[in-house]
């Protein structure tokens, strides 16, 4: 069988398994929420509302139904592409996710780009003189950023740049004195579009200003992973036989590195990027909380506190589906790029 048909079969198998994985995750979350202590009625009404009011709200929200009935209803909704309504404000869960997910994706993408640029630059910088000062600094940078507790780093950055120096806002996603752009929920894109259309750039400037600290902190914290991964893989590639062969053919060192060693060293980095993207879709909770970034992880944390069952289930299902999709896509790209991969 040809490699192409193998690849298609592999893709089909992965795609067929994806709904099963999402169903398993959704069922697990459904059960865990019900097993966990706490009651949404308490979260909504407090513990002192009259019993009749509590019972009425419980019936209104369908929480008086047997567990199997609630589960059946949940699965039925899921199969029809519905995620139900939030218990706290009866808003469709899809609408809540539509509001929060773009914020997390925007933060994640900018942070990832920053992490990749900085991380790869740092990882590449030591290649000229292994064990030299630059290489040592790059290693320390990689270990240091990876080891820093995100909440601590975020708070220190916030304290220095927002509170002490006053250069950047302490939190939020948009200046409170401006009306945020409407549309897709991606403020960066929307405000860029508005700027191109009207020639007024204050929305874009406000968006960038609020994005710098959270994306910068997250990006720098993630960049260490890229730096270390590239450094190790590039070192391994430079010591390999095919690089020696290239050198012996008289190729220049720059060409050897850029054309022969780097592409091979970047393959594992691509896998790491996939894993990082997957984790960022779920949001960088501590970063979002510290910078009051209204993303999906922040929303999920609140929903758990409020025991908002449909919202927690909905967010987890959507995030799980996205993570599965990204993982499949990355696996596929790696499989296409690396002829050594067997499936």
């Amino acid at each position, binding site marked *: 069988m040809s490699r192409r048909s193998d690849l298609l079969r592999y893709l089909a198998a992965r795609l067929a398994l994806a709904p099963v994985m999402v169903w398993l995750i959704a069922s697990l979350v459904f059960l865990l929420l019900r097993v966990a202590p706490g009651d949404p009625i308490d979260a909504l009404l407090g513990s002192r509302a009259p019993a009749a009011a509590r019972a009425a709200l419980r019936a209104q929200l369908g929480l008086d139904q047997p567990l199997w009935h609630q589960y059946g209803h949940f699965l039925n909704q899921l199969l029809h592409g519905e995620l139900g309504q939030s218990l706290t404000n*009866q808003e469709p869960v899809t609408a809540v996710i539509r509001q929060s997910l773009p914020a997390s994706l925007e933060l994640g993408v900018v942070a990832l780009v920053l992490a990749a640029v900085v991380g790869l630059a740092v990882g*590449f910088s030591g290649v*000229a003189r292994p064990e030299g000062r630059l290489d040592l600094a790059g290693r320390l940078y990689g270990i240091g950023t990876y080891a820093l507790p995100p909440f601590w780093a975020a708070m220190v950055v916030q304290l220095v740049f927002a509170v002490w120096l006053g250069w950047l806002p302490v939190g*939020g996603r948009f200046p409170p*004195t401006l009306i945020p752009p409407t549309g897709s929920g991606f403020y960066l894109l929307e405000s860029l579009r508005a700027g191109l259309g009207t020639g007024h750039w204050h929305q874009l400037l406000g968006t960038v200003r609020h994005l710098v600290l959270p994306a910068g902190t997250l990006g720098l914290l993630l960049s260490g992973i890229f730096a270390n991964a590239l450094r190790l893989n590039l070192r391994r590639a430079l010591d390999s036989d095919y690089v020696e062969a290239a050198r012996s053919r008289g190729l220049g060192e720059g060409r050897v590195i850029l054309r022969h060693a780097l592409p091979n060293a970047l393959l594992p980095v691509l896998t790491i990027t996939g894993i990082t993207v997957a984790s960022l879709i779920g949001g960088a909770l501590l970063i979002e909380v510290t910078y009051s970034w209204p993303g999906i992880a922040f929303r999920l944390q609140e929903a758990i506190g409020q025991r908002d069952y449909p919202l927690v289930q909905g967010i987890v299902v959507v995030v799980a589906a996205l993570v599965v999709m990204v993982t499949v896509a990355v696996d596929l790209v790696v499989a296409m790029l690396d002829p050594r991969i067997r499936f």
Partner: protein
Amino acid sequence: MVQARRLNRPLSLLTSALALGLACGLAGCQRQAGKQSLAASTNQLVVASKNRIDTVDPAGAYTFGAMQLLSAIGDPLYAIDPGGQIQPKLALALPQVSADGLTVRVALRQGVRFHDGTPFNAAAMVFTLQRFLAIGKLSYLLGDRVQSVGAIGPYTLELRLKRPFAAMAPLLSAVNLTPLSPTAYRNHANRFLNDRFVGTGPYRLTFFSDQQQRLEPFAGYWGKPPANGGINLVALSNSTALFGALTSGEVDVLLSTSLEIDQQAALHRSALRHKLREGQGPALEIGYLSLLTDQPPLQSPGLRRAIALSLDRRTISQRVTLGLRAPLRDLVPPSLVGSDPQAWPSYNPKAARALYRQAGYCKGKRLSLPLTFRSNVPSDRLFALTWQAQLRQDLGDCVSLEVTGMEATTAYRQLGDGAFTMILLDWMGDFPDPDNYLVPLLGCDQAQGNRCLKGASAASGSFWSQPGLEQALQRSASLSGPGRAALLRRIQRQTAAATPYLPVWLVAPRAWAQRRVSQPRFDGSGRLLLQDLRTSGAPR
């Protein structure tokens, strides 16, 4: 290798140049954005709090933040002024109550219009109240007391009550009952309208997201117009960010809700040094301990009394809240009728020791007392640890406190199951009336002697009642004047003697403003009067 070094040098230069360019660009962006913000914020104020708002529908709102917002964009029939007096707002006068106490009529103000231009009248008020009764999350506030709602004239509202209730005006001051435009809510009569609001208040809501709201003065407002050009409410998720936002000048006013105590104290000190302006509202939130009275060891009234005498509120208030929360020996806040500031005994370790001895402790035997605190409330944890240390120091041979933290929602779920020997909780009435403090703690639908089997007392985790107590609570709801105050004090004295609860401290809302903003003021319901805030004109 040499070539690689050559390759690295331009790369490093390029990276440095890019980083420098980006930094310069961003710095420019920041300055530019700052200028734009200033331009947009002329005479507008930024007010920050920790309160993210899920819904602006009065029927669905229940959080402090939502109530604060609604109080600025809506007008209830009555309002409680900063002095604690009830004042007609959209009503013309105080309610007229029939001789049997079962019919209440309210004359409504004429010439008032909703933000969408719809005239305000009795039909609009009936629509609002019936909608709240049908879908309101807190519908029991009205539903437990009101049989029916109707209009007996274009500007006269009539409420038929289930039983006499003297505090109708304070009840109608609840922001959840703020009138809504029947035109705007026609399609939302049976469901929430979460992101829009059309009422009669001094501000219109012109932008809403859960983290940010913009209020602009309503040109057609019937009353005194706001003193500022608008308010931008913003929610920041953590205390440090809020504190930093005020101290860096990024926000004009900061509300104390959910702000860490030490940061509140730092802002308080700044206000004392005239670096900020500070305003304090009426203390309407109480912190108290609930004692499980139907299980050992606290089923003994003597032991409960001993614990009451073992609580050094003054030291705890100083250590835990740096003096920001006043010690409380009363279940009814002092600003309300019927409060009895000395109903519970003060700290007396000598008397406490005598009672512990009577119960068989202190003679080589020590009472091990479990105390549960809400782990997600920082001041609760500090209280538990401080009291534990205080008891170890003063009565260490008689009693020791075993402290355990539990997440709040989990704790609430188990409260009515009698899971906690002693737990620290807080409470704030839905509207300022003493009944809202006593009934939720002492009400009992079914009792057996001193044990409450079903009702508010059981749900609060104390399971305590007393013959005649429920009747006394119901009688107090129908009384007014000195007779009611005397009855409320008597109820509290009886409760204090049995000690099913221990009041601990009193929480007052605070707000801090930059020097160029006027001093923040609160109404009698504990809400910041946003419309009173004004700037001196100096730019931020």
